[in-house]
């Protein structure tokens, strides 16, 4: 085998093993699987059994309250990963010298970070498919009518939230502060996604704010896709802007130790 080819194979296998290791660690860490998948799934099942929620939402374009909860819980999953799982793990790695130790290997710490992102992304994909599946088969909620539009909106939302997670990691001085910032961000973000009050039921001012928050924008785009059209430009651009801005600031300020 030519040298370069074998080297490329080694490289590939190092990255692949790193992704595998980080995914295993994410599962062992339990925050992602438990709070990011288990908890919203239970919520989904409970809410699905409440018949009052099967009435259409005023201004919800024909969707019922429960229909709206499905995308809200998909966003709940992304928000947990971005505010609890990712920053706590990465800030912990930095605090404990894991990233520093990686700097002395040929692989380098950037790939640990990438592997963490991939692992969290994988958990998010599993969660999204699972939630849509359970809502569909268990409670008869149809898939988003505009599937490619939904997929695009979800990808942008995932990118925006993981970028927010990176930003928290970059700005927090340690693991403790990262967890604290994440928790403080989680609740307002989920509020604006409509976890407690659907966005269409919010007072006008809050509704306007909601459209420009990451989860509010994500919710807007998802709702469009559920109603059968390609998501409108504003929420998509909002999500893309969060992804680009947060990621660039995070990269600019990121410290490996």
């Amino acid at each position: 085998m030519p040298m370069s080819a074998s080297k490329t194979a080694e490289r590939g296998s190092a990255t692949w093993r790193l992704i595998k290791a980080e995914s295993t660690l994410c599962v062992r860490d339990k925050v992602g699987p438990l709070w990011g998948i288990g908890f919203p799934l239970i919520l989904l099942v409970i809410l699905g059994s409440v018949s009052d929620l099967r009435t259409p939402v005023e201004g919800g374009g024909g969707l019922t309250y429960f229909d709206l909860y499905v995308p809200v819980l998909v966003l709940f999953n992304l928000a947990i990963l971005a505010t609890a799982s990712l920053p706590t793990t990465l800030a912990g790695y930095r605090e404990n010298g894991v990233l520093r130790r990686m700097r002395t290997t040929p692989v380098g710490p950037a790939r640990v970070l990438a592997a963490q992102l991939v692992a969290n992304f994988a958990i998010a994909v599993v969660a999204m498919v699972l939630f849509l599946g359970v809502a569909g088969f268990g409670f008869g909620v149809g898939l988003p009518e505009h599937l490619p539009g939904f997929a695009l909106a979800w990808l942008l939302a995932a990118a925006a939230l993981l970028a927010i997670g990176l930003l928290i990691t970059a700005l927090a001085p340690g693991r403790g502060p990262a967890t604290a910032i994440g928790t403080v961000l989680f609740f307002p973000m989920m509020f604006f996604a409509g976890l407690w009050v659907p966005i269409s039921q919010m007072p006008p001012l809050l509704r306007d704010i909601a459209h420009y928050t990451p989860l509010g924008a994500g919710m807007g785009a998802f709702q469009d896709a559920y109603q059968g059209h390609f998501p409108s430009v504003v929420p998509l651009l909002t999500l893309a802007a969060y992804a680009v801005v947060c990621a660039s600031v995070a990269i600019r300020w990121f410290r490996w130790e």
Partner: protein
Amino acid sequence: MPPVIEVRDLHKRYDDKIAVDDVSLTVQEGEIFGILGPNGAGKTTTVECVEGLRTPDRGEIKVLGLDPLRDRAELTRRLGVQLQAGHLPERLQVAEALELYSSFYPEPADWRGLLDGLGLADKAKTRYAKLSGGQKQRLSIALALVGSPRVAILDELTTGLDPQARRDTWDLIEGVRSRGVTIVLVTHFMEEAERLCDRLALIDAGRVVMVDTPAGLTERACAGQRIQFRPSRPMDDRLLTSLPDVSGVTRRGELVIVNGNDNALNAVTTVLARNQIVAHQLRVEQASLEDAFVRLTGKRPDPR
């Protein structure tokens, strides 16, 4: 043959603290080079500059002809590193860590062999957070060697290890050296330095005080001998202090303690015999590397 590691006029400060003032070192291929010095002397800072983890303020460093900062990719493939403080993810298991790290290198060592050699075989499935301090230390040594490095820099190799594990680790390191690997060892253990190192650098307050073989360092510190005895009858100290080979005489109760160079014993016994004094409970201590360390730095080595 060009030296494997060359450090010239290294200077590094943290904010207002000068950690490394002026350090120059060369390490030759295949040798075990020890770095000794009191806490805070700048040992870790020096080796971290060599590893490319820190950016020196001044000075030049070459490792295997590579610049630690500019040629990182190439250097990391050939340099094995044990950090004084370095960690792994808490939930990563021992075997997983070794397998993962061995996949980082083009020609890794057999990680299972390292696991056995360092007495970690029964901990293969234990998570990092659940290891004892000494076991973490052993894993960190294994990770430094798993890439089959040409050069290994080990910061506080056996700190935290029990005496048996320490001896096993010394054997392991000697085995690694016999394969031609160049090793830099930061240590606080004089016994370790004497047993393993071909040459030692003594660093104090950010400067190299002396570079020599362990024996040469002891000799150059002029620590010499210490003789202790109980004279059979009262004697005048001046009998001994007048000897050119004796540097000092002190008394502790009935005991006379004489410090001097390597000829002191000869001179002392001759004088005593001439004065018909018998030396009871005679004890002679050869000054050790530890005495040299204390003499040259004015500090005790860290008792860890």
